[in-house]
């Protein structure tokens, strides 16, 4: 299993990472190496064994529907790069389509 340079470019775009051609040349093979390392695990996994998502074997860990104190708006917004009208200010979400 391998990942193409185009797929890496696509992932970068989805992740809002601006990668130069040089960076793509550099990173695409590295990602490939990581994927092949993970693929070794698949060789170990026997057929018929479902993928493990949780290692503890626990289920049904719940909390009661009881309120706990939350942050003040000032605390909540204290780490935001930009704030307006007591809200998180974020850059344009959709690029204008032609």
């Amino acid at each position: 299993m391998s990942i193409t340079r185009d797929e890496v470019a696509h992932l970068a775009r989805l992740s809002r990472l601006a990668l130069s051609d040089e960076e793509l040349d550099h990173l695409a093979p590295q990602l490939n190496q990581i994927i092949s390392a993970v693929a070794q695990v698949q060789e170990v996994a026997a057929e018929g064994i479902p993928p493990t998502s949780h290692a503890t074997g626990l289920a049904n860990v719940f909390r009661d529907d009881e309120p706990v104190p939350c942050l003040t708006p000032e605390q909540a917004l204290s780490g935001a790069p930009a704030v307006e009208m007591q809200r998180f200010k974020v850059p344009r979400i959709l690029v204008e389509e032609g």
Partner: protein
Amino acid sequence: MTTVSVTYEEALTRYEPVFGLETHVELGTRTKMFCGCLTTFGGEPNSQVCPVCLGLPGSLPVMNRIAIEYTIKIGLALNCSIASWCRFARKNYFYPDMPKNFQISQYDEPLCLDGYLDVSVNGQTVRVGIERVHLEEDTGKSLHIGGATGRIQGAEYSLVDYNRAGIPLVEIVTKPVPGTGSLAPEVARAYVTELRDVLRSLGVSDVRMEEGSLRCDVNTSLSPLGSGAWGTRTETKNVNSLRSVERAVHSEIERQAAVLDEGGRVIQETRHFHEESGETTSGRSKEEAQDYRYFPEPDLVPVAPDAAWVDAIRTSLPELPSARRARLIAAWSLSDLEFESMRNGGALDVVEATVVAGASPRDAQKWWMGELARRANDSGVEVSALPITPADVARVSALVSAGTLNDRLAREVLDGVLAGEGTPDQVVEKRGLAVVSDDSALLAAIDEAITANPEVAEKVRSGKVAASGVIVGAVVRATRGQADAARVRELVLERLS
């Protein structure tokens, strides 16, 4: 661009519509799905947030037991089977309405699967299949600044309030519903109406469409009549009233028929519904839909409801709207139409409570659907929000049956109760409203009326009974409406016989 236009009736002579609905319901838990922040609507921006629902590093989610229970309740009410083991999944995407860059949802392991809901339209029952019911967390609310329309397109930047982020949200997905023909828009609306009533009866959500606690996406497709093949579907978002559900299906049928008539092809895409025009416009195309890279949520353990828990929830289910409908129609000898109008008028609960308080079903309906519905309409509130209790209405009804009040006086008593003057008995007492039933008081008034109208009295004496109306009317006027007209007539005729 489509140039021809096709009327709805024409479209149905050539095409068979198929629709499906995805409904999102905010659960009415006190706190959010994975943290203890309050879910109250309308709080100051970012005042109901914590490290968990802001996705701050190091925070961990824990499932709200009641939210799981409510979802199982919904699944059972919709005749679904409940998964004995399932997991939450991360749905990864890059809109800032979730601060974590993913939404915790369920993917291929929904909590409830494969059920149905029966809805009735024009006395005909349609079974709508339920594909799945799953639980996820709601997103934050964005204000888009700088665009002409306040929409995300064209905005320069956005402002996000995370109070709503993390509120438990249930998604209910129907199977495609074929075979309803020209009734498709009405069946779609009836389904959402019935679903809303089911959810309300379960007490799991306040189901207010105008506040966004119940939201619908409507899928519509057309296939050439008799072809047996299903067409490409569009998904209309933003459909946030019962009327809009009906209009969205209707307008998509017309639009798609025009595209197909021209030899064009319907594009699988998201469309936006516009309340003002009742039409849809193209949104993003499904064909370039993003990959959400779902994977099991590592920070939450699986949910494995055991049979005892599910049985306990099943036992706690209240009477569902379909059962209640059947019961009331039988017990009160109602027509479908009478039932519908009471339900649509929001009067079922108060009418039933009034019957429980001792009124006859007919009288309870008469007052709530007549006089009181008018008052509610005048003041722009639901009939159930009027400041009068079912017990008050039952008492007024009893006073009428006992002959203490006639209908005109009863309306005055209702006035007094609505004006906060007390119970019906207190209003009768304070306003001196009881029918004058004391014959001696009436006889004095009758004698006066006879003396004042000698020619009429002569006519009645000579057998023209109909003429007595003049004298009866004079007596009723003289007693300011408090005399029982039937009794007065009896006494007048006796006097003049």
